[in-house]
């Protein structure tokens, strides 16, 4: 029997889970990154400290270690499995840890994007009586966002690849399903090759979509 054709439904189910975790993590990392970036640029010192500590901690430890620590380590000292459910906790914790890790990098992308907007833009907004929120929302962020697209797409591609680290902590996704299939069929070469191809298709279409998006913004808004 052809191991690939026979096990394709299992692998596609893994791909579906990988896509789901990727979408959740990419949305959350942007939300977290935006909040943390605004905190890092805040005039309120404690907000800056919290955001800086968050970024440094998540950037300076390996994602795999973070996943083990939070998904498998935390239940050893806290009854989190009872709070959230034996099956739900690992999924929630893994998705959140991944989002927080990627969010740390997004924080720096968004912060750099905001700082890259000419100071005169902010002053002009202030001079027509806009408050801090209005200045950020209508003037600074729309301009910062455009220059943030390429690094954000990079980070999104990284996030998709990083979902593969959920497998070692026991979360079912593409790699996890692949390992199961290989254990049954011993078709390492074919299955790993297929898994790599699936990731490639996923990320390649993302970057194609992103360059389309970028071109459109370039044409519409100078």
């Amino acid at each position, binding site marked *: 029997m052809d191991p690939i054709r026979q096990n394709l439904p299992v692998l596609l189910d893994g791909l579906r889970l990988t896509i789901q975790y990727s979408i959740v993590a990419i949305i959350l990392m942007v939300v977290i990154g935006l909040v943390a970036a605004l905190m890092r640029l805040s005039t309120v010192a404690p907000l800056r400290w919290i955001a800086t500590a968050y970024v440094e901690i998540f950037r300076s430890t390996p994602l795999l270690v973070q996943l083990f620590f939070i998904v498998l380590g935390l239940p050893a000292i806290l009854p989190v499995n009872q709070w959230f459910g034996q099956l739900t906790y690992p999924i929630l914790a893994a998705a959140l840890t991944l989002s927080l890790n990627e969010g740390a990098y997004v924080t720096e992308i968004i912060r750099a994007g905001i700082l890259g907007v*000419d100071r*005169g*833009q902010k*002053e*002009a*907004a*202030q*001079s*027509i*009586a*806009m*408050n801090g929120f*209005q200045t950020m929302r*209508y*003037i600074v962020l*729309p*301009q910062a966002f*455009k220059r943030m697209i390429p690094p954000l797409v990079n980070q999104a591609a990284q996030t998709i690849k990083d979902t593969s680290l959920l497998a070692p902590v026991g979360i079912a996704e593409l790699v996890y399903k692949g390992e199961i299939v290989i254990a049954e069929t011993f078709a390492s070469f074919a299955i790993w090759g297929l898994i790599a191809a699936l990731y490639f298709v996923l990320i390649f279409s993302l970057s194609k979509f992103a360059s389309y998006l970028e071109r459109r913004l370039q044409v519409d*808004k*100078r």
Partner: protein
Amino acid sequence: MINVKDLHKSFGENEILKGISTHVAEKEVVVVIGPSGSGKSTFLRCLNGLETATSGEIEIAGMVLTDPKTNIHMLRQHVGMVFQQFNLFRHLTILENVTIGPRKVKKVALAEANKVARELLAKVGLVGKEASYPDELSGGQQQRVAIARSLAMGPNVMLFDEPTSALDPEMVGEVLQVMKTLAIEGMTMVVVTHEMGFAREVGHRVIFMDDGLIVEEGVPKALFSDPQRDRTKSFLAKIL
């Protein structure tokens, strides 16, 4: 309209303004001149709170800017500002540049904001450019849009921070013409500029600043033809 009492401004150890006191009456056009580094731009930026005064008092349109209880955003609705580098919002069309202040800050309805913006753009001679983006316009055109953007907020006072210094020579005239029209209509204006022709023709009073202080002030004709202080004389000798 504007009352300034003993205004000091320091950046760290560096004292830029060393005690400025002056008064600008309603409908008066005051031109501020002086060498670079004299503090004239800093003085102007203090007047709408882009710089915070270190000490002293600024009162504009009945509101005390230097009082921490004053709502700075309320005050800025009454004080327009035009920058040397125009600072148009690059992601917005010309029409949106003019309407965004009234719409977001004053919550004016879109149709009304558009109507006022079109009138103002007509006034500064930019009919037909509504859908363009700032980068598609010349410097002179951009600066005229910036003036319209400020006027859209309905200010009582307009501040101009070297509005023609970044322009190619052939575009200076069109911006000065718009400013002259404003002055004739009775706008209260404080203008930092090197355009002595404008100062002489449009200004009601000229203030000469040097080293963070007002050295001399007076009606343009008298100040230009018969300066009293040596520093004024040597500055005017260099530029006239």
